[in-house]
Structure formats: C-alpha cells, structure tokens
C-alpha cells in the first residue's frame, strides 16, 4: 500500500488497459513523447509503441470523429482533449454521432470509446483552461459521464470506462491530479452508475463530484467541529445517475446542498436538485440548495478564488438548510 497521486493512478489505469487489452489505443494532442501536458500518458508510447499510442494533428473534432471510426474497425480508443474548453470543437461529433451511433444502428454498432477531459479550475490557468463543461455532456443522451474524485477511484473508474461498451466522457479534476491517496490500484471499486457515501452523517447531505468532493469533505469536517453531522456523497457518475443512493441519503437527512464549479444556471446541480424534488420532497426539511460557480465566463486566475465554491460558501449553505 503506497501513496499514489491521481495523475499516477490514471497513468497506471491507461497502462494496465493497454497491457490487458490489445484493442485499446490512446490518441490525442501531445500524448506521445511529451506524455500529455499533465503527464497522464507518460511513458505509454515508449512502452506500447507508436501504433498504440499516438499524437494526432491539432484538431479536436478529428480526434473525436476518428475515434468513432476506429471503434468501427474494432478498436477501443481512449482519446484526450487537452483541456476542458478545447473539447468544444468536438461537440458536434460527440452529440451527433458518438452519442447516437448505437441507437441509430439499432444496437449493432456501439461506440466503445473513452474521451478523457481534464477539467475545472483552481490551478491558476489561463482563459479556456479551467472550465467545467460536464452539463453539455450529461444532457446529451447516449453518453456516460464519469468524474472521479480521488486517486484510487480514478484508477477504478478509468479501467471500467475503457471496458465499457458505450462511450464514456471521463472528466479528470485537474486540481486533484496531485492529491494523494493510499491504497492498492485495482478496478474493484464501485462500478459506473453508483454513487459513494464518503462520510456518513445525519443532519444534511453534501453532494458533489470531482474536485468539489474534497472541498465538501473539508466543509463537513468544519461543520463537524460545530456539532453538525454532515453526510458527503460523491456522485462519481453523472450519467447514469445513482438516484437510489442519492434519494436514500437525502431522505435520511432531509437536507441537501449540491456543489459544483460550473456556472449555476442549468448546471448539473439543477438536475440533482430536481431529482431530490421528485424523489425526496416529503422528507425535505429545507430547500435543497446549490453552491456553484457564478453565471459568468470563467474568471482570470487571480480572481478564481472568488468564483469557485469554497468551504465558507458551503458552510453558509449548510447553515441555510439547517436553520430553515
């Protein structure tokens, strides 16, 4: 049992996937010799060769569309979008084809591919490098949308994503790349489609995914010091969404706050609140609230601390639902 960062865990998941299944390919910008700008693919080209791990021209629509084509030649491509906002040129291929091909082809032609997207803020990056576009994907029927929050689960989820028969959009919380977790790397964690209760509690439920999970854990700890017993739910999988675990938790606590980095309006937090409304209404002691990024373009690095949900804002919201 050693400490491992999320970046290392992801790298290992890719390595083990390449080693375990000779139909797996890795492609993207700068993922070869460079090993990716975050080094997630470090060493993979050297180990598996340029046929299995290769750089593409600088064209995200092409990376997506070519990946789809590769699946139809029997491959399982894992492609990388270099940063969140650079996945947008690929949206048409994702929405119009990758998400729809199984449906369109009456189930004959699934799309077993993974699109990895490093996402989110908090790393002091330039414009277009800190966005949280998960809603665009979660609203696109036919895609699975997965977001790990810790190193070990990142390994587990990525290996499972590569094995999944359907297209998985795999969001990697950049600001957690270097966060460590102790344990063995194994794809033995919860499958895609299950949420995890990371901390049990009785008074309120905090719901998050990606980088906001650790922030919620921090908030829960702070609240605990004031005697408030907060449950923390890591959704992990936005699509399929684990309504059962979500409803069970909120029905128990009667109070919920969902936290995400993306802007509030039509963010995935709204979906979580809507599900709580539908499935937990009679158990609610207070309105389920959202703590999110604001409805603005992602701000410049030196101001991002004001934009991102922080422990204070989460505690304020907890206070609001607890005192309602």
């Amino acid at each position, binding site marked *: 049992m050693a400490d491992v960062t999320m970046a290392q865990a992801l790298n290992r998941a890719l390595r083990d996937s390449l080693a375990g299944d000779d139909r797996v390919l890795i492609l993207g910008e700068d993922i070869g010799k460079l090993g990716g700008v975050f080094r997630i693919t470090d060493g993979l080209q050297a180990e598996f060769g340029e046929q299995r791990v290769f750089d593409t021209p600088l*064209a995200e629509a092409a990376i997506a*569309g*070519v*990946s*789809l084509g590769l699946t139809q030649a*029997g491959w399982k491509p894992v492609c990388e979008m270099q940063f969140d906002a650079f996945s947008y040129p690929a949206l048409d291929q994702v929405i119009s084809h990758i998400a*729809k091909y199984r449906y369109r082809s009456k189930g004959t*032609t699934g799309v077993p591919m993974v699109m990895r997207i490093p996402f989110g803020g908090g790393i002091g990056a330039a414009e277009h490098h800190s966005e949280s576009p998960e809603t665009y994907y979660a609203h696109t029927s036919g895609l699975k949308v997965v977001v790990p929050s810790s190193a070990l689960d990142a390994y587990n989820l990525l290996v499972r994503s590569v094995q999944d028969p359907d297209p998985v959009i795999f969001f990697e919380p950049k600001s957690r790349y270097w966060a460590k977790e102790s344990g063995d790397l194994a794809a033995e964690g919860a499958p895609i*489609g299950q949420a995890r209760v990371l901390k049990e509690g009785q008074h309120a439920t905090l719901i998050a995914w990606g980088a906001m999970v650790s922030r919620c854990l921090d908030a829960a700890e702070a609240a605990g010091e004031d005697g408030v017993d907060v449950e923390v739910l890591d959704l992990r999988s936005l699509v*399929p969404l684990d309504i059962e675990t979500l409803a069970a938790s909120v029905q128990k606590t009667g109070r919920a706050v969902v936290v995400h980095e993306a802007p509030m309006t039509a963010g995935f937090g709204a979906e979580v609140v809507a599900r709580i409304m539908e499935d937990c209404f009679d158990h609610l002691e207070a309105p389920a609230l959202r703590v999110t990024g604001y409805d603005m373009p992602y701000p410049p690095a030196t101001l991002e601390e004001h934009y991102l949900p922080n422990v204070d804002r989460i505690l304020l919201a907890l206070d609001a639902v607890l005192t309602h």
Partner: protein
Amino acid sequence: MADETVRILAPDGRVDEEDRRGLDLKDEDLRQLFRYMVLARNVDLECTALQRQGELAVYPPAIGQEAAQIGSAYALGERDMVYPSYREVGVAISRGLDMVEYMKFHRGTWHGGVNDPVGSGFGMFSVPVGSQPLHGTGHALGTKLDGKDVVTITYFGDGATSQGDVHEAMNVAGVFGAPIVFFCQNNHWAISVPLEKQTAGQIYRKAEGYGFPGVRVDGNDVLAVYRVTREAVERARAEHQPTLIEAVTYRIGPHSTADDATRYRTKEDVEAWQQLDPIERFRMFLETAGIADQSVFLEAEAEGKDLAATVRAGIQGAPPRDVEDLFRWIFAELPPVLVRQRDEVLRLAEEDRDG
C-alpha cells in the same frame, strides 16, 4: 470542364479506345455497370413517387449522379467500407444492400439506413453535412493498424467541402497515410447555394494542401469514374495513400422532395445537364461498341422496375416500429432513469391501445 478533367466517354458515347483498353473491365463488367445505373435510376424515381404519395417522409433524389456513384462503387473490393452521406442510393444498390431497409430511413421508421453498418460495409446515413469523412479516416486508420487489406471510401458533396470536418479528415488521413478515398460528388448545388458561392477554389486541388493526389473526373462518365476510383483504391491499398476525387456532375432533381428548386435555378440550367445524362451516354457507347444491345437494355429496365416494385411493396404501409424499440438501443444496458421512462411510455401506449 477544364483540361485536367479525366474523361473516357464523350457526351455522345464515343470513346478513346486506348483509354478504354487500359481499363480492367470485361464486357460483362460493362453490362453490369449499366445494369446498376438503371437499377439506381428506377429506384430513385420510384422513391420520389413514393414520397409524393405520402409513403416516404422526404427523399433526396440522386438522378443524374448514377455514373459517379456506380462507377466509384464498382471499383471497390468486396470487403471495402463505405461511409456515405444521404444521397448514395446508387452506391447502396451496387453494394447489394437491402433497399427496403435502406428506404426506411426516408419513411422515418428508424434512423440510419441499414441494420449493421460494419457487417454490411456501408456506414449509416450521415445527415450532418461533412461529418462522415472523419469516421472514414478513423476506420481506414484502424484497418491499417490491423494490417488488413481493406480500403475505405467516403462520399460527400460539394457543399460539404466547406466544412471544417472534411478538412480535418483529409489532413489527418494525409498524416497517417490512411487507406481511404475521399469521393466528392460535385453536383453543383448545396440546396440552393451554387458551387461558386461554396468555394473560390477547385475542389480537387484542395488535395494539394494535404500532400496527396487530387483528381477531377467527369462524373457523368462511368468509365472515367471507375478508372480514377480504381486507381485511387489501389493507391490506398498498396501505398496507403489517400486520394481526393472530384466527380463533376449535376443534381438534376431538387435537393429533396421538400425543396422547390425553381426558386434558385432555371429550367435551362438543368436542361443543359440533362443532355449529359450518364446512362444514355453509356448506353450509346455500349450499343456502338457492340457490347450490349436492346435486349440487355430492356432487361436492365425490367430489372429496375422489379427492384422499384420491391421497394414499393416493402415500404408501402410499412408500420412504425414497436414503441419498445424507442428504448432498446440507447445503451448496452438500460440505466434506472431510462427504465422509469420506458415504463411510463409503455403504460401510456397500452392505455392508448386499450382505449
């Protein structure tokens, strides 16, 4: 058309004998080409009629483009793969697809065109213009990685050449040496937008920028189309080099049965091209060369009528699919949210049925 356009058959059916001898086509093949073109024309006209009669929702006629479609498809090997747009009825016929299933797209009973794109070697209809060449490039790259002896061809229109995706597909194919043929049917129109408003360049010369050959061919000359495609297919197979082919032809019909082409072009525009009809041209050649006679022509016609009748019989009154099918193929396994939604739909449908 400028000098650089490859042509074997003159509009009056005369042929450059040397060119012709250079073709690896037996008389039998020539008759087969003719046959496919006639089949395509018949099915195409029938489907336009079926749409007028309300049996199809909409149909995009391919009339006039038969030489481009049949000539190119005939140059493919059996296991080669096609990524079409939505107007490739001729390609589909000569690839042996089930044309009733094919037309169900146009009836709106399901998306896509055929059941199993990979199995049939014919990708699903691609409606978003210009999006399918990327799939073709990916497929071609995939077969090359496997060392398979497979060539991929992708069809798209003059309008599609304006799309970024088409550029990206060609560029990537060039870089990876993907065994693919980019087959552009320049039919002079993208709905109402004429070629000269689509690009100020020559389509086939766009290949220069990708480092592979670009060829312009008379798209109404089935022999020339066959020849340039054959060469391109061989180049892809043997040398892993892509080719861009611009087949210059004309959209004789409206963009689709929903379109009113009189709003943007004159009868004269169309008539000039009707003179260049690819089937009649080829027929004259076959007759003059003594390769086929009236009986062959009549037989092809009859077969065309038969196929058209089959399509009509298959499509006429074809029912919508089961409501359950709505939920069958979204994911390999239906997640809980969708189970709830399916149950609602089925309950409602049942209530409807019961009264």
